[in-house]
């Protein structure tokens, strides 16, 4: 694989999608307000939970805010990269234009996962980082090298898991053609990533760590920030992320064998 070639291509992708998205400037402003309101809303909801109780699932309000911050960053990444590209896959398959992608002399998964970009998600990512730095201050977390590396590793693993989940569902489009609603189901499940895993009952906790690993996506990185996480949890997250990435890749290659174009 030629890395330089892929970098050049990615620059072109960036250029074209930014150019087309900046056509709708007012839209970007509306999206920014939406992101801010949605963060305010979830903090409001969290404050309702905490108004008569100091701890939820063993987390203080200030600590639970870290989860919100990480969720916001990840949601921004989803809106910037995963959502616009993977909704495109559905369109490619339904209209048969996936043929053109497969004919190109580059990796089809690369093309399909990174072609588009929605700049309004950047603002959400920034918003998340602001909140995260605020949380680091109010929780009096010491920044040192090992801590920064660990948190970067866990957050990148979360991104990989999230990407694989999205890519998994989009791949099933090859068989089911319409998967919009499956994505909605995933979105609603991801919503619980806004809250500490320990605040749910035991059976739900099992469900969200074994079947859909939402627990890994936000709770473990937040625990790293608070210095609560044990090493085995971080290792487990790395393994889960690797397994998810490899399976989603294998699954895509497997699914392509069943792709039979449209209207031909």
């Amino acid at each position, binding site marked *: 694989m030629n890395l330089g070639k892929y970098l050049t291509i990615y620059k072109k992708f960036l250029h074209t999608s930014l150019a087309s998205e900046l056509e*709708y400037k007012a839209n970007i402003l509306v999206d920014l307000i939406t992101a801010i309101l949605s963060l305010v809303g979830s903090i409001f*909801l969290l404050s309702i939970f905490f108004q008569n109780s100091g701890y939820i699932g063993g987390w203080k309000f200030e600590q639970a805010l870290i989860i919100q911050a990480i969720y916001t960053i990840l949601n921004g990444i989803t809106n910037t990269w995963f959502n616009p590209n993977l909704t495109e896959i559905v369109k490619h398959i339904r209209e048969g234009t996936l043929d053109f992608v497969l004919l190109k002399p580059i990796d089809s998964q690369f093309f399909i996962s990174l072609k588009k970009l929605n700049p309004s998600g950047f603002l959400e990512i920034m918003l998340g980082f602001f909140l995260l730095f605020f949380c680091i201050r109010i929780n009096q977390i010491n920044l040192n090298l090992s801590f920064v590396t660990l948190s970067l590793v866990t957050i990148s693993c979360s991104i990989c898991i999230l990407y694989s989940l999205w890519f998994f569902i989009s791949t099933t489009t090859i068989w089911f053609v319409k998967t919009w*609603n499956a994505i909605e189901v995933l979105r609603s499940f991801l919503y619980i990533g806004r809250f500490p895993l320990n605040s749910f009952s035991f059976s739900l906790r099992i469900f969200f760590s074994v079947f859909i690993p939402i627990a890994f996506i936000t709770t473990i990185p937040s625990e790293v920030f608070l210095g609560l996480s044990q090493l085995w949890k971080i290792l487990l997250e790395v393994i889960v992320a690797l397994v998810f990435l490899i399976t989603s890749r294998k699954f895509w290659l497997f699914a392509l064998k069943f792709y039979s174009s449209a209207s031909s």
Partner: protein
Amino acid sequence: MISNLINRKIFTLLKVQYSNMLEYRVEIALWAISGIIPFFMLNIWTNNNLNESINISDILLSRYFLCAFFVRQFSVVWVVFSFEEDSLMGKVSPYLIQPLNPFFRYFAQHLAEQITRFPFALIIAFFFFIINPESLWIPNLSILLLSIVSTFLSFLIQFLIQSIIACLCFWTEKASSIERLLFIPTLFLSGLLAPVVSFPAYVKSWIYLTPFPYLIDFPANLMSGNETNISGGLGMQILWIFLLYPLFKKIWSEGTKKYTAMGS
């Protein structure tokens, strides 16, 4: 004669849309599943004993969230997304020639979808009662009828609001981002994630003047047998419909004058 004609039109529209929706029953089932967020919230509430502070017993709270789930299922509106797509594809032009406001078509689509969705919602409720058998109850007939009426009114309010936004498509191509913005207060203030009773006083002082608590909180309280002001709630719902309907009429007649038949 005239009413007969209208009846026939509505009946035909409903029949066509119902058979259309039946084709997509898998998607509708998935969509019904994506509405289970209230149950996750219930889990947080009861698992952390948060309901003690607002004086609602576990059983009443679980009934509240079940009803919130039901009300949400039967008041989901997506007219802005359909209309945006139709107007971008130029499909609105033939609809405008017909002697029937195109919004009747969307209205029938929503009603047909609700009929298709009903059995799936019942299945989810059935599982809910298997897990929480103690919260099973039978509301008396008049309360049940009233809550069905208020759920329908809530659906009407949301349908009118979204139709007004959809009409903005005549001026801007992407009206759906405004809808996504408006969805945020609907999500957090309607009572889907937390009953309005639990909101802090500074929110409760003004929230009853907005349409939001009448969308989910009021019908859900009514159905689940929680305390609520029945005549006041129904009155406010009707008042909002009377406020929104002329606005829709106005923006529709202004918009159709601006219409420039895209894509044809």
